[in-house]
């Protein structure tokens, strides 16, 4: 295993390395094309603005949207906050009910809780043991006051993919706006806004080999009302999101979207092969391996599992050479058990034993082989230790 750089990065849901091709696209905007894209009066502004315009088209193309339906934000957290709070307020007081699910990302759940404190009603849908939301539950939760359904496409912790098409159709039939947090899905699975009846979609740069600090919100051009802005000011992004845009970050997101769209098949093939390899190595190695979340309806780059009798913190301690995660990266300072694993019915012990492995574009076969060996070695060691204690 001489050719593996340690630690091996297996935390692609937390963040992805910047693709060098993306960095190449960003560099000119950090150097000679440094202009303020809102300076409409000279070449430096125009160059920067042209970079932003191209990026906007690249983002739109990836999801079957129009460039004018894309606004740039500082990341998926801002996009989700704006989509949910901004739209909820815009649609109130006529409609004051929102439907979401218990397994959403904290920024969605926290936005919903903030709305509840302000008098809105929120339904938090449960998921089944696979982590899937029933479209019938979505339909049943709707009331005449429902303005918005907000669900994630791919879960950040367990990688399961929701039935977007069915749920989108239900929303369309009921004339309810469908918002999708696609931070973990964009560029990884095909998403077409019209086909899926999605009206609002949140995108993150750093989950798709782009830079941190940039994201986008797709806002269907035909929806009314439009979400209210979180920030007011210079009126950039058609008044929906004030603040000087960073052409470097926008260009980075655009390039990342372009590459993801072009190479989606290739990426998927590569990641699926590695994911299968790791799964079969671990399965063959011993008993007690349980994968969390639906096994078919999932993004292949996410493996979340526990091994009976092996504690997660002990496992992670043994796996110092693997950069992986026991929960989602955002909530490191809190040691609460994962709300997602709780929702799919795992016991406290099973949750504590669960680890998440994220595989991505830059992961190599050698790294996967090394990871499998390390995990098997660690599990054997821990099991032997436990055995001796008995």
């Amino acid at each position, binding site marked *: 295993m001489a050719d593996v750089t340690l*630690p091996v*990065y297996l*935390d692609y849901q*937390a*963040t992805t*390395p*910047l693709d060098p091709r993306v*960095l190449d696209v960003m*560099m000119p905007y*950090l*150097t000679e094309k*440094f*202009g*303020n894209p*809102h*300076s*409409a*009066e*000279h*070449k*430096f*502004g125009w160059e920067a603005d042209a970079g932003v315009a191209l990026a906007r088209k690249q983002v739109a193309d990836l999801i079957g949207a129009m460039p004018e339906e894309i606004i740039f*934000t*500082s*990341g998926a*957290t*801002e996009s*989700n*906050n704006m989509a949910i709070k901004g739209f909820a307020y815009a649609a109130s007081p006529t409609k004051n009910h929102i439907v979401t699910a218990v397994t959403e990302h*904290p*920024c969605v759940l*926290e*936005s919903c*809780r*903030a709305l509840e404190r302000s008098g809105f009603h929120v339904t938090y849908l449960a998921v089944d043991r696979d982590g899937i939301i029933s479209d019938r539950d979505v339909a049943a939760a709707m009331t005449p006051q429902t303005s918005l359904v907000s669900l994630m496409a791919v879960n950040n912790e367990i990688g399961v993919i929701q039935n977007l098409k069915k749920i989108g159709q239900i929303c369309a039939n009921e004339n309810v706006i469908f918002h999708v947090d696609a931070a973990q899905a964009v560029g990884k699975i095909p998403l077409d806004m019209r086909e899926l009846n999605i009206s609002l979609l949140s995108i*993150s740069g750093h989950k798709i080999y782009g*830079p*941190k*600090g940039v994201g986008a919100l797709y806002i269907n051009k035909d929806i009314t009302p439009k979400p209210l802005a*979180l*920030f*007011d*000011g*210079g*009126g*950039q992004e058609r008044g929906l999101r*004030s*603040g*000087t845009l*960073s052409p*470097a*970050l926008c260009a980075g997101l655009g390039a990342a979207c372009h590459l993801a769209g072009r190479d989606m098949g290739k990426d998927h093939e590569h990641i699926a092969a590695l994911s299968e390899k790791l799964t079969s190595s671990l399965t063959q190695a011993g008993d007690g391996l349980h994968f969390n979340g639906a096994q078919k309806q999932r993004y292949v780059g996410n493996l979340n599992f526990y091994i009976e009798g092996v504690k997660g913190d002990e496992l992670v301690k043994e796996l110092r050479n693997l*950069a*992986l*995660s*026991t929960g989602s*990266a*955002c*909530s490191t*300072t809190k040691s609460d058990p994962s709300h997602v694993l709780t929702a799919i019915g795992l016991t406290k012990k099973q949750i504590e034993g669960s680890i998440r492995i994220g595989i991505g574009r830059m992961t190599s076969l050698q790294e996967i082989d090394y990871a499998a060996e390390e995990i098997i070695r660690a599990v054997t060691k821990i099991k032997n230790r436990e055995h001796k204690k008995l």
Partner: protein
Amino acid sequence: MIYLDNNATSPLLPDVIEEMTRVMKAGGNPSSVHSIGRNAKAILEQSRQNIAKIINCRPQKITFTSGGTEANNMALKATGMDHIIISATEHDSILAIKDNFKGVVDVLPVDENGLLCFSDLKKALKGANDKTLVSVMLANNETGVRQDIKELCAITHEAGALFHTDAIQAFGKIPVDFRDLAVDMMSLSAHKIGGPQGMGAFVALEKITLHPLSFGGGQEVGRRSGTENLAGIAGFAKAASLVPKNLTDINNLRLLRDQIEHDIGRHAPEAIFYGAGAERLPNTSTILMPGVLSETQVMAFDLDGICISSGSACSSGKVKPSHVVTAMGGNKDMALSTIRVSLGRDTTQNDVTAFISAWKKLYDRKRKRL
């Protein structure tokens, strides 16, 4: 091209580009617990410390944001205020509160030099309490006029209210010392000091309770959720650490700026330099060429290879009279005929000479037609 629009954005410093490239290549999410995440976290906290040192405050007072606009929005909308007092020449990201606030907003006038009158503030502060916020910019983005923040802040505190200053345009051009200003809150932006766009900071005393604009993973001690823009933060910190060293150079721009105003003033006595009677940033000049629309001026300068602007970059695209010029007593025609020249550390004597002769050329041509 000669770039004289440094208040819109400034070129990145070479050291900043190098630092950002390094951090982007290193990767990692600061919230991950593994070694790659911990390294990212170390960069994040080191950057916070570096900036804290430069602006003289404790690191925990700094919350990183997506830019100055977000920081200004936090100050006004996330602090639970019910009465906000601002000046008429604030940046759009502050002025916008007029249309987006449930409480009372008072907009105070400025004099012909762009300065706020102490007695106006005292009057507006009658009945103030800890839910009253005064927000005045340290230096104006269009004219460079510097308010007496220490005095305004003292008056505000005496009345029991809180004080925020938008220091976005001032930082990097004059010394900015959080503790010395004694303000409760301050906004900063990276791309005005040779750092990257899309990056800013909200600096606030720990006693300020924030009701965040964005909820989520609880980053930045819950004050601002969202995965941190680590390369942007590291670039901002690098640029900030170079501020003290570059301040002398920036201060010396005063000579070039004064030369512009002297030469143009002698050639065209009817030209007006807004804020020239007040203390200003050393790099900024707002010039009225009577009877010539700023759009026309901008185009003419562009043909001469000089980039200037007709006002702040945010509102460009829409041609509207400068609210700063009208607040300083200019009429609509005057407000539509001013341009902003903002020099930067790369500006040379030749650049300034070229600008002066381009200005004179345009002025003479227009005079002949009149």
